[in-house]
């Protein structure tokens, strides 16, 4: 089975995000870029499906600027067979729907039996591309996947998604889009051999024109980013225990409205 994994390059989780001068993007200088962690679960699951079935191909795809190749190379080092980079300035302002349409065009060319994505990218936390991709393709889709089992002939996948307090299990006909949740698996470390071998694997550059797409204006544009207000300092209640507890309860009830 051919499996396509759509990934996104995002700032490392430890990044101190600063808003750029234009007020609607972030300062990218000095950022360490990584594969979004939920996407790593998707890559790992694709590799496990291939290993379990003893055959197949794992293709990593991303839409992003030139630097996003590093993220694709990380997927290749983990074990993906090849990668596709939708790399065109026409997509510089792409919103989730534009991204989903571009990925759908790649899917139509590649004809995979399954598409895996992370349940959301950890930068803008939209969590929309997987669902929009399935919608554009007319495929079924299941999000927050904690377990999956594909039947022997590759016709359906039993997918268990996380819901409050338990799992909700679906039989989903293939092809389909599944979105990985944390807990689906434990992603492997790329081996040094895998890293050295990654440079020999293909990363194909694809332009909007190659996908038969024009430059649609995005439906969603960011007008402004605002930093979170700084966290107010904690408050220490002085006095003897009996008075302090009374004041604590009053404050929780009247100021914080927590009880």
């Amino acid at each position, binding site marked *: 089975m051919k499996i396509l994994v759509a990934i996104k390059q995002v700032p490392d989780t430890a990044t101190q995000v600063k808003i750029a001068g234009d007020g609607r993007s972030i300062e990218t200088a000095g950022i360490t870029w990584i594969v979004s962690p939920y996407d790593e679960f998707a890559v790992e699951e694709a590799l496990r499906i291939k290993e379990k079935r003893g055959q197949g191909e794992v293709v990593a795809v991303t839409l992003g600027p030139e630097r996003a190749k590093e993220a694709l190379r*990380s997927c290749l*080092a983990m074990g993906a067979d090849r990668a596709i980079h939708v790399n065109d300035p026409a997509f510089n302002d792409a919103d989730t729907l534009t991204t989903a349409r571009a990925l759908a065009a790649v899917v139509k060319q590649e004809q995979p039996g399954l598409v895996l994505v992370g349940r959301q990218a950890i930068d803008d936390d939209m969590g929309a591309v997987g669902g929009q991709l399935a919608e554009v393709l007319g495929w079924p889709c299941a999000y927050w996947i904690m377990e999956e089992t594909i039947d022997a002939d590759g016709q359906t996948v039993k997918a268990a998604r996380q819901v409050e307090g338990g799992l909700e299990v679906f039989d989903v006909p293939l092809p389909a889009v599944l979105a990985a949740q944390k807990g689906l698996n434990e992603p492997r470390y790329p*081996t040094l051999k895998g890293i*050295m071998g990654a440079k020999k694997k293909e990363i194909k550059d694809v332009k909007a024109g190659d996908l038969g797409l024009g430059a649609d204006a995005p439906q969603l544009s960011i007008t402004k980013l605002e930093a979170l207000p700084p966290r107010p300092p904690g408050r220490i209640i002085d006095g003897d225990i009996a008075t302090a507890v009374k004041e604590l309860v009053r404050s929780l009830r009247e100021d914080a409205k927590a009880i």
Partner: protein
Amino acid sequence: MNFDLSDEQRMIREVARDFAEREVRPIAQEIDRDARFPHETIKRMGELGLMGILVPERWGGAGGDTLSYAVAMEEIARVCGSHAVVMSVNNSLFCDPIHKYGTDAQRGRFLRPVASGHEIGCFALTEPQAGSDATNQHTLAVRDGGHYVVNGRKVFITSGREASAALVFVQTDQAKGSHGISALLVEKSRPGFLVPKTEEKLGIRASDTAEFVFEDCRVPVEHRLGEEGQGFKIAMASLDGGRIGIAAQALGLAVGAYERALAYARERKSFGVPIGQHQMVQWMLADMATAIEGARLLIWQAASLKDAHRPFSLQSAMAKLFAAEMAMKVTTDAVQIHGGYGFIKEYEVERFFRDAKITQIYEGTSQIQKLVIARSVLGGKA
């Protein structure tokens, strides 16, 4: 001049860092306290390819370069000096010489299982009377038909208890002095190969340091690495490369201690302000950061020269000297910045301080590095 790592080197650094943070950090304190060899994580480092970085894939290694080795070593040592020394000896002092001087039969038998991390290798040069005076070898190997019969004693052998095989330096012709030294590959399972003792140590406590005794230990002649009399040259060439590994270990220890000191300087308050706002602490942090960067550049230079197949003995001696002295100073100051808490095991920084000391001693003391450097700059004429 380009100071950027390649994509591969950057990814190798990331893997080493992730592995060290997620797998090694949780056990680093415990294995130091109990002097317990971390079999589980060393095995996984082998699976990742960290135990045979420079060895080509066909012999079980990762096929990486020396710069990748140095950056991976820094990341492992930044978290645990014990893991780092096991990695360094395995890569530089066992895999490297067998790959360079071995026959294919020797590579298949001794290199492949160790480069792929299934087994561990060690390097037995030091004797009770032969430390810095390494040519003063008393372990004898006497030819008896198709075998050497080995008798003698080796001390301070890193990974000596855990290794499955050792590269052992022996005197095959005493009359020739250092030109009579040969290198033998010896499985630990050979009769007459005894490991009577493991040392209790100040630092790198989770790595085992053992004593070997050879009593009429018979080693096939075809297990000799290189020619008879070539042993000392093999030992010195291995140590040239090993010094890059130990320099990178020292660098990693310094970075680990410095990062803790920096974090502590931000959070610990005295006289109403974080101690990092006091000029004397700032001074120490500035010196630490600068010395770390200087050591890293010397190490990267030595590694790059080795990768370019250019002479690098002088640069690796300089890197090892500078990095070891720097690590001792930086870890000492890191303890100082922590004040009384630095002296307490819970704060971890004392472990880096204890681990750093050995980097000034093994694989050539700082004094020996100065000797190597002085001879080189004086053109051997002093």
